[in-house]
């Protein structure tokens, strides 16, 4: 395996998760890189939605640095505004949501609002839900990218910003009035998680080469379920890394950042 950075591993794994001929609603950064890589390799028919208003652009003048950026609309098929693309999503046209966040709980709920004890007087205020809340609610499947750290994989969120399976009860999402089927994958550089169908709790599907489920559990506050068919995470080939480094993010805006 060629050396790859944690964010390269995440992007590559994100790419693997995306099927061809589907539509993915992407946020800035790694989701865009993952989607670009997928388009360049196994999913040439993958369509993108950017929340400022573009459907299925061709990213031929470089990676967008903002979901509202001119590059994100480049040669789109359809371009209106936020209402149009989120309504496409409510109507069932977005197969995948690709979101990040500050904390995640065992049920795939995500916090991106604040850390601390009080909404009114937050310890650390984050940017807020942004598009993620609507994406997690109404794209058909939610993919969450998160650095694998104990402070992020928590038993209970400080604030539930973006809905997953809630408390895990089978009718939680229906009672919430949301349409998508919910969390699908959680991608970290050392582990790929899915969700257990009956308990709706996070389920370890793959670990990075050289890592054990126990090592993953150490970085997670809640009890991690392990899939009976646990696999090794596939690593990017040299060509994959070339695409990520030279085509997707040549400036290294996202791929060259460090995990704390």
């Amino acid at each position: 395996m060629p050396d790859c950075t944690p964010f390269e591993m995440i992007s590559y794994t994100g790419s693997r998760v995306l099927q061809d001929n589907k539509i993915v609603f992407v946020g800035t950064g790694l989701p865009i890189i993952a989607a670009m890589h997928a388009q360049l390799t196994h999913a040439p028919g993958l369509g993108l939605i950017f929340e400022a208003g573009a459907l299925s652009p061709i990213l031929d003048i470089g990676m967008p640095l903002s979901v509202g950026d001119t590059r994100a609309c480049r040669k789109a098929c359809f371009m209106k505004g936020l209402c149009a693309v989120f309504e496409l999503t409510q109507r069932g046209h977005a197969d995948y949501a690709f979101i990040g966040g500050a904390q995640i709980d065992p049920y795939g709920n995500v916090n991106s609002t604040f850390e601390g004890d009080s909404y009114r007087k937050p310890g650390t205020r984050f940017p807020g839900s942004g598009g993620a809340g609507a994406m997690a609610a109404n794209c058909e499947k939610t993919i969450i990218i998160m650095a694998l750290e104990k402070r992020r994989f928590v038993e209970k969120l400080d604030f539930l910003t973006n809905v997953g399976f809630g408390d895990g009860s089978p009718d939680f999402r229906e009672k919430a009035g949301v349409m998508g089927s919910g969390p699908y994958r959680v991608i970290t550089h050392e582990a790929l998680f899915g969700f257990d169908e009956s308990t709706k709790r996070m389920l370890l599907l793959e670990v990075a080469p050289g890592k054990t489920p126990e090592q993953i559990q150490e970085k997670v506050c809640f009890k991690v379920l392990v899939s009976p068919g646990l696999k090794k995470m596939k690593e990017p080939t040299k060509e994959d890394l070339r695409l990520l480094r030279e085509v997707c993010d040549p400036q290294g805006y996202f791929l060259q950042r460090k995990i704390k």
Partner: protein
Amino acid sequence: MKYKTSSKVRNVSRLKGEEIRKVAGQPFEWWGPSPKEARKITVNKQKALVDKRISLKDAVKKHIKDGINIGIGGFVNTRVPVAIVHEIIRQGAKDLTLSFQSNSICAELLAGAMILYPDHLNIKRVELAWWGYEVIGIAPLLRHLAANVMVQLDDYTNYGMSARFKAAAMGLEFIPVRDHGGSDMEQLNRGIMIKSPFSDKNTYLVPACYPDVGLIHVTAADIYGNCRIFGPLCTCPEIAMAATCNIVTAEQIISNESIRTYPNLTEIPYVAVDALIEQPFGAYPGVSYGHYWFDMEHIQMFRNASEEFRRSGNTVPLKKYYEEHIFSCKTFNDFLDKMPEPALRKIKKFDGGQPIIIG
């Protein structure tokens, strides 16, 4: 009221019950004109095609009053009404409510003005979905305001805020959405869960958001205020129709004949526009599709000054930014004149040249 109907979200997170009850105990309140008041203001307007051009200084003097709700157009760095925000900061305004989906530089500029010159400009509350810089980083001044409980925040999703403006643009009180339910926003924001009378299923309603004044930057407009927007429309058409008054800057003024040749291209009709200013680079250092990309270095420079303040309390670099780039400028063009020509040339080039129709 809040708990007549709800999802099962209670106690999923660590959010404290007393905090929820505190918020839910408050009766619902409009943070700007009510739907009825907003309609009345519109009904009483003259509807004629008149030349709406005015100086930005006069537009802000005329329309920006203490205590109003300001709806900010654009999205993050895209077509953000920076020129108008500079002028508001120059003139000052108190007890503002801000409403937007996602914003970066405009929200931070107003927050910084409040921190440095609280008697001149201050923000009482913000209804929003997101406040940050995306790739450039978090918003230091939001973090400062929030940690010090200097503003009241009301959180929605980007669709939620967009749908709230859309409901107002449609003249409604509320609109159903398929998000917020099952999140703590359901417990805290001013939306309400009901049972659909058609299916008995839980359905979240968000209240319309009618700003007193919308701030909008567009690609082109005729003198009457018929606006074209190319690239992402963001939520600009909805905000413009929602607000009871709009100040619009346009990259360029085009002829009414051109507007009437392609009426399908008008995204905001003249009836919504009260003050119009031709202001090239009016979204700078943000991006305006077909004209220029964003100036990351300039944004970083301002953000660095903000971040230094947040970390150390040192206001010197931040103050320097405001003095040099806003208060010592009479107009936005004075500010642009201070920008290095190569920087502007570069962001023009980075736009990529997807064509716009302005003939």
